[in-house]
């Protein structure tokens, strides 16, 4: 299962640094895309499939996706110490920065360049979300049921504005049950 080429191996300290960096620089949200970039593309510590499996679970469970992913990836790579290092890094430094930004905000708003600079960064950040969605969609098996579930969950959230709780509960349990039956028939 291990990727053939590992330039560096994961340690709790490295996890802390990577997650702190993601937490502090991920303007515009979509932190899971930054994680996919850092752990799969840049370091190959996880396969794309392992990452997307974790993401599916992190999204279905209550909790912030990012902290869920931090614990999931941290535990998977370095056990309890890894989980603790990752979640601390993804919460505490950005929390401090957030308060500092709130203090600086009133002052920054005076400059006319602030607005367009933020709009541009926000637009590029949407690219992250789009890339992440395309990567995840590419990995969905080309069978009728998974493709229909993907399309239905997109429509439910994007067009019908159904609360996520119901999408996850109804869509998630139907999808998991169908997959369970399919895995049973495979044997």
């Amino acid at each position, binding site marked *: 299962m291990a990727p053939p080429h590992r330039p560096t191996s994961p340690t709790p300290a490295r996890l802390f640094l990577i997650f702190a960096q993601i937490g502090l620089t991920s303007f515009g949200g979509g932190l899971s895309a930054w994680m996919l970039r850092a752990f799969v593309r840049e370091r190959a510590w996880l396969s794309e499939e392992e990452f997307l499996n974790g993401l599916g679970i992190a999204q279905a469970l209550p909790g912030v996706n990012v902290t869920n992913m931090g614990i999931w990836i941290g535990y998977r790579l370095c056990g309890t110490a890894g989980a603790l290092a990752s979640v601390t890094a993804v919460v505490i430094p950005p929390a401090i920065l957030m308060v500092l930004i709130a203090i600086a905000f009133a002052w920054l708003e005076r400059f006319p360049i602030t607005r367009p600079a933020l709009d541009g960064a926000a637009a590029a950040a949407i*690219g992250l979300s789009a890339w992440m969605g395309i990567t995840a969609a590419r990995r969905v098996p080309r069978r009728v049921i998974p493709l229909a579930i993907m399309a239905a969950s997109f429509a439910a959230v994007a067009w019908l504005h159904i609360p996520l709780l119901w999408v996850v509960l109804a869509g998630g349990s139907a999808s998991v049950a169908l997959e369970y039956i399919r895995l049973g028939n495979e044997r």
Partner: protein
Amino acid sequence: MNPRVATLLGIFAPLSLLTIGGGQTIIADIQRQVVDVHHWMSAGTFVTLFAIARMAPGPGSLLATLIGWRVAGFWGALAATIGIFTPTCVLIYALARIWSRHRGARWQRALEGGLRPLAAGMILATTWVLVGGLEGGWLARAIAIAATALLLATKISPLPLLAIGSAAFVLLHAL
């Protein structure tokens, strides 16, 4: 210690377990508690804090930290942060432990395989919603598309990508 600190913990800890599919689901309820029930701030102040939380890096649920800080200073920020993150963190930690013990079980593969298409659909929907709320017209949309293409084609890190997007928007906007 400020009595509000305990109240903050009491508000955010239960909300933590309701944040399914990201922090957006509980925003309305936070607003109700903070503005209508406890009268800690006006609706206008709440919206400003929300905008700052969206703009700043890090998880969007750090809005809780900002509210805690606003309501009761350092201890308020700490209590709100612990409240919003701890319950769900314990939950997923327990699950991660169970997961590694039963690797390859049928129920586990069904959960993984079943949830992935759902996650893909929800991420694409998030993108759709974000594009709808994008400010800056066609120029911003063009930058979003260019950024997507760049991410698909290269190994560019997100931070330089956002810097390029920001600079491009400022330059083209000025023309």
